[in-house]
């Protein structure tokens, strides 16, 4: 029997009035009238859309699964140029309007940050190396699904961009990340070139950014995009269900890419085939995943992504080093699953 989930949102938006005090002064809530501050309203609406997505699609009651009130503070600091989930609430700094526009402008960014809260409560997933990149990927995956769900988009209609409204006029770039084409989101004299890889052969070893968590998430992001396009339709209905089950039911705090791949393969089999329950309206994913998991892995050189393992590294972003080898071998079966999905989508 399905468990009843409250869809009654509780949202508070505060202003820090350019101080560092949290949460600050309450300016908007479910019982307080909307004003003219764009950032206040966007923070309120973005948290509401994210709440609705998890409640309606996955029957999850807020970030913690227990109806947690969603608090957001805008105008944090005089020149704090970022937005974050701090473990308790959303915090938005103030953009300069030139390099960055507004940190509340992209609903997928708000959903990304709030998904870190879901991950915190559901899986306590770590934040270093592959585990951290998986954590970042999950935030992007649910972030883009919130945007697609809000816009009523199927996978083929989505721009697959995270933070398309974040950069200001001084920057040559379309977004902070591209899930369709990692590494191409921006190329600019001020902010540099997007360093995200799309393939395990280009996994970046670095001591920065907790082991490149915002960089190597591109590998899983691209896999997610390819799977969504191959399956077609609404991303959140099939792929989202698998990803959500993996996040909330299967991941250990130290899970790596291979653990996540195995979890999604197992869940896909259980939900859509491979001896499990097969949904009548969406049989293809079950057959595709079940089929691909029962055949030998293909070599990376035959996978769709172009290998650049031997290419010289010219990243301007720090001591990054691209590696292949054992990690790539461990990951090769995931690309086989995706290749199989793509083949089936064409037949």
């Amino acid at each position, binding site marked *: 029997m399905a468990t009843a989930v409250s869809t009654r949102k509780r949202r508070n938006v505060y202003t820090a009035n350019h101080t560092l005090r949290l949460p600050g002064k309450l300016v908007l809530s479910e019982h307080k009238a909307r004003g003219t501050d764009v950032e206040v309203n966007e923070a309120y609406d973005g948290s509401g859309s994210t709440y609705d997505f998890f409640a309606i699609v996955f029957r999850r009651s807020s970030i913690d699964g227990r109806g947690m009130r969603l608090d957001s503070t805008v105008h944090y*600091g005089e020149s*704090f140029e970022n937005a974050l989930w701090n473990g308790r609430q959303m915090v938005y700094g103030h953009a300069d309007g030139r390099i960055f526009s507004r940190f509340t402008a992209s609903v997928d960014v708000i959903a990304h940050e709030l998904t870190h809260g879901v991950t915190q409560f559901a899986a306590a997933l770590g934040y270093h190396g592959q585990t951290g990149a998986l954590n970042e990927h999950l935030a992007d995956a649910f972030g883009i699904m919130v945007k697609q769900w809000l816009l009523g988009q199927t996978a083929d209609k989505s721009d697959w961009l995270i933070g398309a409204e974040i950069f200001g006029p001084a920057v040559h770039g379309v977004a902070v990340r591209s899930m369709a084409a990692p590494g191409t989101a921006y190329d600019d004299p001020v902010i*540099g070139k997007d360093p995200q890889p799309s393939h395990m052969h280009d996994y970046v070893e670095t001591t920065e950014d907790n082991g490149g968590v915002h960089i190597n998430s591109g590998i899983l992001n691209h896999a997610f995009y390819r799977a969504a396009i191959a399956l077609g339709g609404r991303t959140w209905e099939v792929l989202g269900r698998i990803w959500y089950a993996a996040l909330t039911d299967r991941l250990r705090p130290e899970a790596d890419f291979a653990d996540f791949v195995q979890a999604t393969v197992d869940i896909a089999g259980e939900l859509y085939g491979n001896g499990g329950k097969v949904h009548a309206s969406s049989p293809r994913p079950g057959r595709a995943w079940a089929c691909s998991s029962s055949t030998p892995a293909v070599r990376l050189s035959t996978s769709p992504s172009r290998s650049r393992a031997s290419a010289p590294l010219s990243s301007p972003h720090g001591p990054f080093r691209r590696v292949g080898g054992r990690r790539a071998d461990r990951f090769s079966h995931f690309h086989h699953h995706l290749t199989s999905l793509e083949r089936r989508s064409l037949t």
Partner: protein
Amino acid sequence: MPNIPQKYVCGAIPPHILTRVAEHTSNEASGTARATLEHMRELATGRAASLLQRPTEVGHGRLNAETSQRLHR
């Protein structure tokens, strides 16, 4: 369902972008980016430390003097 405090801080703007801005822009933009990076580090380490001590003060922006000066300029 576990109720485990988050032990990290993810910013919407990744550190490699802020680092690049800090190193390749004018004084004002560079200073803001440096201050943001420093504050992000302090939020992360401050909260990590507070998890062992006083969880109720998690994320309340403990700053060193230099960062505080930049953010409150």
